[in-house]
Each structure stands twice: as structure tokens, then as C-alpha cells.
């Protein structure tokens, strides 16, 4: 009876002035409550423990969380250690023999939350910054009022600004839901949460707007509109980012085509298969690395880039020399013959590597993500965007600044004149086609990171690639860039309204209509040459 009284007292203490009341004696009471087996008591016990300040607290609560805290038949509370060892919960002393029929303490969701909150509060002052950050986040989520005191102390002590801000937000979250807090405190909390401006903050503010006093309500409503606006901007930015990432994939797939189709006027339906060949080259290199030099795994992608270029370019040379060369000036026939090539390439790869998807791994630098002012940026996407822009710039430079580029432009503008100036036009044709194919191969390296590497890989890009080139204006590389990014972003903005498939259909229909209006694309060249 007296024990129970003391317990109630202690509880009351804990609520109002936890640190003062902290005494090891609480641990014993808390364990008694936990041993009772009734959920409300267990919850109270956890709260009591959290405030006890006892060095054992963390071990006990963690054991509880992990289901290792048990009550023996003799009412002793024990902790199960690794490989069947047991220890006394209150003291941490190892037990020589297993306690009689220990029963794990059961948890329900409420208690689980209390446990999380308790652990959060506990680690708020841990020496490890990452742990403190996690703890602050945990408190923010649990909004456990009992953590308030610890939180205040932690804020006073905290030296890392970012973590201090997080703790402040956690504190604000608690105060906003706390019936005991004053309006002034709540309004201050609203301001803090408004600066946080994410979905969580929005939810808290909405709750506050629904129940608080009129002044709080008003403040919360103001904050809600501000946060909503910010979130809208953020989601737009996120869409732009996804769109940019899709656009850069389209760009990669289409750049090679912009040369073969756009600049040289050769319609190569096997373009997608060049991409596929690049992806399979990556796969082969990774397999080799896996079996022969596992340490080099991170280097497989940089290595695959030149290899994929080479392999695809060689296949391109073979196609140009063997087939396309004999069909110059007959675009529709070229289309059909290269379609045949694409079938053969697909079937070859299917025979060599099997019809199923092949696993191409992501090196360490492609994995993970970071946060940029509320945007989540994955490294994989970031690298692909950077890569596609690098390829594009390299190509522009190659065409504008090298003598090879000059020759390509000369031949495509006036073949006869170029020939009479001593340019070997047939060699230039072959090399330009090889360049376009090689770039498609390089695109394959990047696409192997985000798409299934299967014999059908190329097929899924061919319609898109042609659309990009045609939309941008044939023969205009900058047009291809703008068009790829525009289509990518448009696609991502359509998706939320129409769904992925319908969005794509809408885009195709738009493109079909667009070509009617501007048959030569966005940035069309005008002149006699294009009319021929």
C-alpha cells in the first residue's frame, strides 16, 4: 500500500519536475509496474524509468523494445542476453542460472510509442551527434510531453545548430499539442513549425487550427497557407527535378539519333539496339570484374563508357558499310533495312545472354540520396543528369570545334562540294554514323543503371527517341536538348493528373498534333536543302 502511494507521488513528481525527483529508487518501482503485466501500468513504468536518470534505464528500455525483458516466476525482472545468458534488470548483474520460467513483457502500440519516446529523450544528450539528431526526430514524431524537460535541457546544451533547430521543432510540436501550454507558447510553436514547412508540420498545424483558442487558430491558419504554398513550390521543384532526370534519359537516348537522323538524315531503326548493346557491354564488364577483380567493382562504369562506345561504334560501322551505304537517298528503304538489323541484334543478344533481365549493379557512388532544401536528390539521378549533359557538351564541342566535325557539317550540307574539296565523303559518313552509334552505346551504360537490361531495352526507347529528335527539329542539336528536357518535364507534370500511361498517351497525341503544325520541329531549319 505504502509502495503504491509512493509510486503515485513519484508519478506526480515526474510529471511536473522530473529531474528533481530522479532517484535510482524509481527504477525499482518502475520495474514493479512493468512486471504487473497490465498495459496501462507498463506504460507508466516506462515513463517513470525514462525520468529516473538511472544508468540502467537505456539497457532496460532497449531490452523491452526488443522483447528481451522478461518477468520470471519469482517476479524478478530479467534481461535475456546473447546466447541464452540472463541478467538482473535493475542491476545488470549476470545470473548464474536461468531464472524460473521467464515470460517476455508484452507490448502494444501505445507502449511501443512510449518506449520510442523514452529512448528518444534518453539519447537527446548522447555524445554522438547522429544519435542526438535521431532522438530529436523521434521526439518530434512521438510528441511525448514527458520529454519536454529533457528536451529543454538538451536544447540548452546542444551546440550543433541543425540539431538544435530540430529539437526546437520537436519542442514546438509537443507544446502545440499540450493542453497546458499557454497561447503565447503555442503561437511561438506555430511560427517554428511554419519554418519547418513539411507534411508533418502541416499535419500538426492543421490539428492546432482545428482545436486551439482563436488566436492560436488564426496563427495556425496563417502558417498553414504559408506552408502549403511552400509545399506546392517544393512539389513543383520535385517534379521539375524528376522531369529533368527523365529528360536527361531521353536526351541520352536521343543524342545519337540526333546525329544519325538529325544531322545525316539516316533513319536508323536499330538505334535502340545500340543503346541495348551499350547496356550489355556494361553487364559483361561487371561480370568480368565480379569474377576476376571484385575490388574494381566501383570502376566498372567508368570503364564501361569507352568500351560501350567502342563496341556500339563498331557495330555501327558494320551496319553503315554493309547496308546503309547502299541505300543513301532512299530513307524509307533504310528504315526497313535497319528495322531488320534491329531484329537480328535483339535475337543475337537473346541467344547469347538469354531472354530475361540481367542484373547490372550500382557502384557505391550511385547509391544513396541527400536533402537539398526539402528536395530529396538521389545520387543515381544526379549522376545521370550530369552525365547526359557532359555527353551533350562533348558532342557539341566535337561537332563545332574539331576538323572532323567540320567535315561532317560540310558533307551533310553539300556532299558534291565537299567531295570536290577533297573530303572523303564516304569515310565521313561511316565515321559520323559510328559516332552516333557509339554515343547510343554510352547512353546504354547510363540506362543500365535505371532500366531493366533485357533484349527489349532498345525497343522501349525507339519511339521516344524519334519523338524527341523530331520535336526538337531535325538537324538541330540544341533543339534536341530543349525537346528532351521539355518532354521529360511535361511527362512528370502530366503523371499526377493522368497517370503514367495516360500521360504518355497524351504526350504522344500532343506530338502527333504538333508535327502537323510544325512538320520540321520546334527549331526548324529553313531553306532549300531541307525541302529536297
Amino acid at each position, binding site marked *: 500500500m505504502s509502495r503504491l502511494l509512493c509510486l503515485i507521488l513519484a508519478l506526480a513528481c515526474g510529471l511536473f519536475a522530473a529531474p528533481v525527483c530522479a532517484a535510482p529508487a524509481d527504477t525499482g518501482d518502475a520495474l514493479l509496474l512493468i512486471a504487473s503485466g497490465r498495459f496501462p501500468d507498463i506504460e507508466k513504468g516506462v515513463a517513470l524509468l525514462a525520468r529516473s536518470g538511472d544508468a540502467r534505464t537505456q539497457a532496460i528500455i532497449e531490452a523491452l523494445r526488443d522483447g528481451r525483458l522478461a518477468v520470471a516466476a519469482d517476479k524478478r525482472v530479467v534481461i535475456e542476453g546473447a546466447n541464452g545468458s540472463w541478467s538482473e534488470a535493475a542491476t545488470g548483474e549476470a545470473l548464474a542460472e536461468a531464472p524460473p520460467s521467464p515470460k517476455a513483457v508484452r507490448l502494444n502500440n501505445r507502449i511501443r510509442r512510449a518506449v520510442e519516446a523514452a529512448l528518444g529523450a534518453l539519447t537527446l544528450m548522447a555524445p554522438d551527434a547522429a544519435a542526438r539528431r535521431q532522438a530529436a526526430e523521434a521526439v518530434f514524431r512521438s510528441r511525448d510531453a514527458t520529454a519536454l524537460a529533457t528536451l529543454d535541457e538538451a536544447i540548452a546544451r546542444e551546440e550543433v545548430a541543425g540539431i538544435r533547430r530540430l529539437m526546437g521543432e520537436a519542442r514546438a510540436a509537443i507544446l502545440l499539442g499540450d493542453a497546458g501550454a499557454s497561447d503565447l507558447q503555442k503561437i511561438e510553436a506555430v511560427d517554428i513549425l511554419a519554418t519547418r514547412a513539411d507534411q508533418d508540420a502541416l499535419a500538426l498545424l492543421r490539428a492546432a487550427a482545428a482545436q486551439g483558442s482563436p488566436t492560436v487558430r488564426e496563427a495556425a491558419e496563417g502558417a498553414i497557407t504559408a506552408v502549403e504554398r511552400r509545399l506546392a513550390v517544393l512539389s513543383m521543384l520535385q517534379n521539375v527535378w524528376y522531369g529533368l532526370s527523365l529528360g536527361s534519359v531521353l536526351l541520352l537516348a536521343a543524342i545519337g539519333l540526333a546525329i544519325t537522323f538529325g544531322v545525316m538524315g539516316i*533513319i536508323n531503326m536499330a538505334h535502340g539496339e545500340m543503346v541495348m548493346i551499350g547496356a550489355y557491354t556494361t553487364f559483361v564488364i561487371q561480370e568480368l570484374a565480379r569474377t576476376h577483380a571484385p575490388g574494381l567493382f566501383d570502376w566498372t562504369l567508368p570503364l564501361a563508357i569507352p568500351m560501350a562506345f567502342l563496341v556500339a561504334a563498331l557495330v555501327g560501322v558494320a551496319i553503315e558499310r554493309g547496308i546503309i551505304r547502299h541505300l543513301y537517298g532512299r530513307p524509307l528503304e533504310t528504315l526497313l533495312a535497319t528495322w531488320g538489323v534491329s531484329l537480328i541484334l535483339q535475337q543475337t543478344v537473346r541467344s547469347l545472354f538469354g531472354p530475361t533481365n540481367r542484373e547490372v549493379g550500382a557502384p557505391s557512388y550511385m547509391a544513396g540520396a541527400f536533402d537539398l532544401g526539402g528536395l530529396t536528390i538521389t545520387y543515381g539521378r544526379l549522376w545521370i543528369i550530369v552525365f547526359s549533359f557532359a555527353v551533350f557538351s562533348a558532342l557539341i564541342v566535337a561537332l563545332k570545334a574539331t576538323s572532323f566535325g567540320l567535315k561532317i557539317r560540310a558533307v551533310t550540307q553539300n556532299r558534291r562540294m565537299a567531295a570536290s574539296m577533297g573530303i572523303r565523303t564516304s569515310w565521313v559518313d561511316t565515321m559520323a554514323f559510328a559516332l552516333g552509334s557509339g554515343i547510343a552505346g554510352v547512353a546504354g551504360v547510363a540506362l543500365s543503371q535505371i532500366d531493366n537490361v533485357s533484349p527489349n531495352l532498345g525497343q522501349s526507347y525507339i519511339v521516344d527517341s524519334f519523338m524527341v529528335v523530331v520535336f526538337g527539329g531535325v538537324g538541330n542539336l540544341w533543339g534536341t536538348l530543349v525537346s528532351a528536357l521539355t518532354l521529360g518535364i511535361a511527362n512528370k507534370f502530366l503523371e499526377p493528373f493522368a497517370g503514367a500511361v495516360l500521360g504518355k498517351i497524351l504526350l504522344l497525341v500532343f506530338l502527333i498534333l504538333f508535327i502537323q503544325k510544325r512538320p520540321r520541329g520546334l527549331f526548324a531549319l529553313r531553306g532549300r536543302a531541307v525541302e529536297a
Partner: protein
Amino acid sequence: MTRRPILLAMLDGKGAIFLGVLAALAVLVPLSNLFLPETSPLHVPTYAVSLLGKYLSYALLALALDLVWGYCGILSLGHGAFFALGGYAMGMYLMRQIGPRGVYGHPVLPDFMVFLNWQELPWYWSGFDIFPFAALMVLAVPGLLALVFGWLAFRSRVTGVYLSIITQAMTFALMLAFFRNDMGLGGNNGLTDFKDILGFSVQAQGTRLALFVATVIALALGYGVARYMVTSTYGKVLIAIRDAESRTRFLGYRVEHYKLVAFTVSAMMAGVAGALYVPQVGIINPSEFSPANSIEAVVWVAVGGRGTLVGAALGAVVVNMAKSWLTGALPELWLFALGALFIVVTLYLPKGIVGTLAERREKRKATATAKTAGIAAEAAE
């Protein structure tokens, strides 16, 4: 007064042979199937009748494609879409004929709608239980799509490769659309498990023979229509457009109207082909819209010889027979063979089988007349 020459011109040598072969097929195949004992080497089993019917519906598709590609230079990479739309129109009729005999036993709704928890038939399914209406739709739906698409494309003078690419985009977009369950046309699985057509079981031997004969007749009619078109002055204008489009404009011809007529008629023919294909094959699904299908049809025409009509039909049958045989015997070789076919035909046989034969015969005739002229000259000396 000059009507006779047109009719005469319509029936040239290869046309006569073609129609003769079709007539023979329409008579002999059913006779053999019905009256020859199964042990006879000349007996055509019922499954083979349907297989032949399938080839002939492909031949009609090829004929349609040849009309626009061979004579007007419009390389459509989306004719499979018109074929599939005709097929879907027929498939919808066949679905409605199932009535309450579906797995779920719903009196009106097809199984897949019951499965999707739909409560009533979408509006665009109404009327399809009536055969004449469905038959009209077989023509109207592909025709209307071709009319709208062609009107937009030809009016703004999209030609050549660009036109090919947007026709491909069209069929690709339709494929994506038909894959969606929300379309209410069976999604992925398409329409299948047909029971009756015009009250006869689609599985019955008699029905299969009737469908086969209907396909032969449709092919002959299609040939007649196409042949009339290309031998009339209209056909000469089409060829003029193919060879020198802007010159034709300067003569005062509204090129877009000419193209539009050919494209629409061709799409309707393709629709009929699809409608005949579906009951003989027993299923229609969105993969019929895949760009690969349309472009495969192009190679049939190329193999047979474009701009010859008869060649297109022949090409469809020959290539598909080879396909059936190869995919059975050496499945992994089929795509190699098809790919090689594309390459070889464009590089070495640009006129196709029929075109090359015709050219050779002409050359022989020319040398023969030169020889007789030479002999005559000698004799005169």
C-alpha cells in the same frame, strides 16, 4: 463511251491468275475438307482451313497497305492499328454474343467487366450485339481514325519518314491505351472465349469453312476495289503524287484529298481484314497494335512487290507460311530470318517477287521484239 478499256485494263494477266486462284481456293478447300477422307494427302484439316483464312486476312491487310505505300508513297507503320480496330469491333460483337454463358454468368456484361466490378455496359458497347451495326463499325472506326489522322497529316504536308514515324506513334499510343483496363475493352487479355457468330458456333467446322470462304471473297473484293482505283485516272494521280508531289500540286490537284481517299479506303480494308481475322484466330488483344506488327506487314508487301497488289497478297501468305513453319521448327531462328528478310529485300529485291518477275518478262519481250525486228530487217535486205 471509254468504259470498256478501263474494265479491260483492270483485269490484266496476273490479276486474272490471282482471282482464278482465289476462286479455286474458295471451292476446293471446303470440298477437300468436307469430302476427302482424313487419310488422303489432299485432305485439308479444319485447323488448316482457319490457318489459311488467317493468312488470307493478312493478305487483305497487305493489299490495303500496298494501296497507300506502293501507289501513293505513304509508308504507314500504323496499319496494324486499323487492322486491330476492325478486329476489336468484331470482337465486341462476338463478346456480346456470349450473353449469359460467361464464367460469371452475367446476362449482359462480359466476364472481364464483372471481374472489374463494373455495373453496366459502357455506352460505346451498345449496339454491338447487332451484327449489321458491328459490321458497319468494322468499316467506320478505322475509316474515321484514318480520315481524322490523314486530314491532319496530309493537310500540313507531313510526308516521307516523318509520316511513317507519326503513324508508328499513333499505333503505339493506341496500344498503350488498349492495355488500360479503364478502356473497357479487356485490357491486357483483350477479347476472347467467343462462342457464336450469327448464331453459329465459332468452333464448328461449317462456321470455319464459311469464315474461310468469306475471307476469300473479301480478299477478291478488296482486290477489285484496289485494282479499280489504281487503274482509273485516280490511280495515275496517286502515282504522280508518289513520284513528284509538288508537281502534281502545280497541276491543280488537291494532293491531300487524293491521299485522304486512298488512306481511308485502305484503313477500312485493313479493318475488314482484322474483323475476319478475329473469329478465325479466336482472340484479339492490344499486342495487335504493337509497332512491330505493323512494320512486319510492310515487309510482306516488300517481299511480294509493292505497287503490284497481287504481290502484296502473295508476300503476306508466303512470309506467314514461312513464319508458321519456322516458329514451329526452329523458334529462335525466326527473328533472324525476318530481320534478314528486311535487309535482303530492300538491298537486293527492291521490286519484290512479282515486280522482279514482271520486269524480267518485259525485258525478254523487249529483246524478243528487237530480235524479230532484226530478222525482219535482214529479210528486207
